[in-house]
């Protein structure tokens, strides 16, 4: 199984300065590619964790960190919304709003329960339902301990690694199967058409989140 593959090196706080260098590079690449219209994903999958930037926004209102996240995620959010059927102008506007929400709600981000990409995806999806489909989105009740609980560093790192493996497993799926999953998330399939059996290591992530929830509930009682 894919989730039993060799250890995946996930970037951590200890190599923060290198982030800046890589960011510079990917921002330039995006700028050049941007001139020809669509920005394609970099040839080497760029799956860094982005948790340092989130912490810098939360703690220091760091605009440079925000600019780096923006350069990476905003074009992807826009591309995702366009693939989901949004007009480019509306997709642009929503992508900006999603990034503004990321700034305002940075204190609610919990790296032990979601990666940065996961969290941004959920904000973008909800924005799409609200603004593009004009529907109401019922969201589950907030957990009783709130966002103030200090996330465990080991949990956060493990979550980043599991998410990294999920991304690799998705990329390694046979083309046909991968396209089906993409179409589901672009809203091209109704919920009844979605094949639940994906062969992806989703159970690993589920178990990780479940453990974190159990631990926090235990600590509460």
């Amino acid at each position, binding site marked *: 199984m894919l989730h039993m593959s060799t250890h995946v090196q996930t970037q951590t706080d200890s190599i923060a300065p290198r982030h800046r260098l890589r960011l510079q590079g990917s921002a330039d690449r995006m700028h050049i590619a941007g001139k020809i*219209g*669509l*920005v*394609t994903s970099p040839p080497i999958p760029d*799956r860094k964790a982005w948790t340092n930037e989130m912490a810098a926004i939360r703690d220091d209102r760091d605009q440079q960190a925000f600019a780096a996240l*923006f*350069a990476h995620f*905003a*074009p*992807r959010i*826009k*591309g*995702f919304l366009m693939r989901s059927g949004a007009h*480019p102008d509306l*997709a642009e506007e929503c*992508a*900006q*709003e999603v*990034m*503004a929400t990321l*700034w*305002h*709600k940075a204190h609610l981000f919990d790296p032990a329960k*979601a*990666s940065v990409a996961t969290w*941004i*995806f959920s904000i973008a*999806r*909800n924005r799409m339902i609200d603004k593009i489909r004009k529907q*109401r*989105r*019922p*969201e*589950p*009740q*907030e957990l009783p301990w*709130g966002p103030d609980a200090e996330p465990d560093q080991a949990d956060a790192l493990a979550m980043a690694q599991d*998410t990294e493996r999920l*991304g690799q497993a*998705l*990329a390694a799926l046979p083309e046909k199967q991968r396209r089906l*999953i*993409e179409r589901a*998330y672009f*809203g091209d*399939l*109704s*919920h*009844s058409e*979605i094949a*639940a059996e994906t062969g992806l290591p*989703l*159970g690993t*992530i*589920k178990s990780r*989140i*479940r453990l974190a*929830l*159990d631990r926090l*509930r235990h600590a509460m009682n």
Partner: protein
Amino acid sequence: MTSIQHHLTDALLMGYATGTLPEAFSLIVATHISLCDECRAWMGAYDALGGAVMTDTDGARMTDDSLATTLEMIARGDAGPTPKPHSGGIFPTPLQDYVGGDLDAVKWRWMGGGVSQALLKTDGGPTVRLLRIPGGTAVPDHGHRGTELTLVLQGAFRDETSRFGLGDVEVANQDMSHRPVAEDGPDCICLAATDAPLKFNAIMPRLAQPFLGI
């Protein structure tokens, strides 16, 4: 938390993550997840898959001044609503938002046979309602033209398949005809969503159907 026996299906969880579920079904999913850590964790996994899909999506070029525009938006400081903590009561917050309060705020309407209902307002398509079934009472025998999701919020009911208690979800489809009976004790309160009118097997409920909106 640990007593929940009947969970959401993979298709419902994935439909909720992709945002393709009708609103009435999403309300059932969000309310169940509020009560169930297992399904909350699954939701996190399906959201992670969404994040992976988004990460791999070809980016679309943002306008030249997009970052500056976004920073101006941030400076204007519209943070949007902050999630509310649960203020007590038996309904989880997503359901309280639809009811406009807890159990005591529900405007019940008599359905016959001692059963009451309250239709909740959602965007067209599938409908969602609260049901109140006194202990020991049966819901009229019915089948389904589509999918019916029933989430228990108080008390319990039994049908031919199993027992459903607090937090349990029953997913009934076309093949299924059943006659749920509330267990003795307090009223059984359920949240039920359906994407097609139910098929009642007796003449009286069938005649009343147009008036009850089921």
